[in-house]
C-alpha cells in the first residue's frame, strides 16, 4: 500500500462519524454477517434494507455489541471510539442506542420505571418531563406495568427509553412492525422529530418505501453481505434494484 493511499484511507476513517469495516459475525457456528462495511455521516439517516433473514437485525446487534452474533473480525467505530472491543453497556455509554425489533420493554415494572432504568448510567438524554411532553400517552400510563401496554405503546416506550439517553447513534429495528396504521403515523411523526434533532440514525424497515422517504442514504443487505450503498432516492427510483433485493 503506498503512502498517499494510506493517508487518504486514514483520513476517510477519521471523517466518517460511524463506520463498519469488514465486519464478520456468527451465531454459534452459523456465519451470518459476512464482511459488512459502510459509513454514516453525522446527522444522517440511513435505511438498512433487505429481505427477511438478510442480516439486518444481526448487523444492528453487532453494532450494539449484543453477545450474539459474536463479531470475530472487523472494526466498528463511532465518533473515534472503537466499538467492536466494547461490552454492550460500554457501547451504550459511548452513545449507541438500540431500539430492538421485539421492543423489549421490561415487564413487571412500570412505564416510568422503564424510563428510570434507562437513566441509571450516564450520559443522559431527555429528562422525564421532556419525554412525557413528547409522549403524552406514556405520561397517562406512567404507573402502569409496561407489560400491559398495547404493542404501539410498547414501541413508543422503547423509543422514549432510548431518548432518555444521550444518543450518538440510534438504531431503530422495524419500529412500525405489526402496528395499526394510526399508530404507525404517530411513531412516524416521532421519528420525523428525531430527524429534526439531527440524531444520527440507522433504521431497518420492512416497509422500505416509508424508510426511504425518511432516509438520506440506503444500504441494502442480502445474505449477510452489502449489495448496494447509495442515496435513498436512487433506490426509490430504481425499480429493478427493488425487485431484486427488496420485494417491494
Amino acid at each position, binding site marked *: 500500500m503506498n503512502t498517499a493511499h494510506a493517508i487518504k484511507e486514514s483520513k476517510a476513517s477519521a471523517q466518517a462519524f460511524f463506520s463498519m469495516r469488514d465486519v464478520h459475525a456468527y451465531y454459534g457456528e452459523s456465519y451470518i454477517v459476512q464482511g459488512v462495511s459502510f459509513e454514516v455521516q453525522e446527522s444522517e439517516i440511513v435505511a438498512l434494507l433487505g429481505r427477511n433473514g438478510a442480516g439486518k437485525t444481526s448487523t444492528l446487534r453487532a453494532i*450494539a455489541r*449484543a*453477545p450474539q452474533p459474536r463479531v470475530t473480525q472487523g472494526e466498528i467505530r463511532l465518533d473515534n471510539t472503537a466499538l467492536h472491543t466494547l*461490552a*454492550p*453497556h460500554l457501547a*451504550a*455509554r459511548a452513545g449507541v*442506542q*438500540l431500539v*430492538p425489533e421485539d421492543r*423489549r420493554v*421490561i*415487564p*413487571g*415494572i412500570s412505564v416510568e*420505571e*422503564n424510563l*428510570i*432504568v*434507562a437513566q*441509571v*448510567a*450516564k450520559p443522559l438524554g431527555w429528562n422525564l418531563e421532556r419525554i412525557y411532553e413528547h409522549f403524552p400517552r406514556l405520561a397517562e400510563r406512567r404507573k402502569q406495568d409496561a407489560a400491559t401496554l398495547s404493542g404501539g405503546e410498547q414501541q413508543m416506550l422503547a423509543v422514549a*427509553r432510548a431518548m432518555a*439517553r444521550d444518543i450518538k447513534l440510534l438504531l431503530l429495528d422495524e419500529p412500525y412492525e405489526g402496528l395499526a396504521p394510526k399508530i404507525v403515523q404517530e411513531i412516524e411523526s416521532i421519528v420525523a422529530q428525531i430527524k429534526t434533532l439531527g440524531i444520527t440514525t440507522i433504521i431497518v424497515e420492512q416497509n422500505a418505501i416509508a424508510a426511504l422517504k425518511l432516509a438520506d442514504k440506503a444500504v441494502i443487505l442480502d445474505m449477510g453481505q452489502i449489495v448496494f450503498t447509495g442515496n435513498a432516492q436512487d433506490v426509490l427510483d430504481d425499480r429493478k434494484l427493488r425487485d431484486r433485493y427488496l420485494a417491494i
Partner: protein
Amino acid sequence: MSGNLVNALTLQVLTGMQLGAVYALIALGLTLIFGTLGVVNFAHGALYLIAAYLAVFISTELGFFAAVFIVPALLFMVGWGLERGLIKSFYSRPHTDQILVTFGLALVTEEGLKWAFGSNNIPFPLPQWGTGIVKLQEYLPFLDGFVAFPKWRLVMILVALTVISLLFVLLKFTRFGLVIRAGMRDSGMLRFLGVNISQRFAVVFGMGALIAGVAGVFGGPITQVSPDVGMHLLVPSFLVVVIGGMGSLGGALLSSLILGMALSFTAEYSAVQQIIVYLVAVIVLLVRPRGLFGKQGVFE
C-alpha cells in the same frame, strides 16, 4: 375451643415459623441468586456452614454482637469474591456444570471443616441474654395458663422477619432494587441501556451470602455446628425454592412457612415428618409444575 388446644396450636405455629425462618433465610439467597444470575448455587449451604463456624469462633473471642456484624460482612465478601472469581465463568455453561462446580465447592468446604475441626458438633453457647424461655401468656392474653417458648427461637423468628423486611425495602423502594428487579426480567436490555448489570448481580450474590451469614450466626445454636449441617439445610431449602417457584422471593417465603408448619405439625409422627417435605413438594409440583409463583420459561 379448649384452652389446651389453643396453647398447643400457638406453640406449633411458632415452632413452624422458627423452622421456616432458617429455611427462608437460606432459600431467599438461593432464589435471589437464581433469579438474577440463573445459577443454582449448591454451595449455599456451605456458606451457612462457614458462617456458623466463624460465628462460634468470633463470638467466643469477641462476643456475640461482634459476630452479628463481622460474620455477615465477611460472608458478603466471600460471596462476592466467589462470584467474581469462579461462578462468573460458568454463566454460559449448562446448568449441570454450574451444579457440579457449586456442589464441588460445598463438598470441599464440608471436608475441609471436617479435617480442621473434626466431624463432631462444636458447641455454640447462646449469649446470656438469649437463654431461657419466654412466658408467652404474658404477651398473648388468649393463652390459658403457663405457656413457655425458648427465647432464642423467638429471636430467630424476629431476625428472619427483620432481614426479610429489609430485603423487601431494598428491592422494592430503592433504585438499586429497581435495577435488580429489571435485571431479573431482562439483563440483556439493561446492558443496552448502559447498566453494568453483572457488577450489580455480583453484589446480589454477596447479599445472598450475607443473608446465609445472618442465618448461620443466629441459626447455628439451633441447628448445631457440624460439617454436615450445610447439606442438611440445603436440600429442604432448595425444595423451598422449587416449591415457591424458581427465582420468586415471595414464593420462597410462603413455601418456607408452609414447610415449617408441615414439619411442626407432624413432629409427633416422626415417620411422617421424615417425608413431609417431599410430600408437600410432590403435591405442589403436581398441581403447579412451575411452583407457587414460578414464571414461564424459567429453568425449563
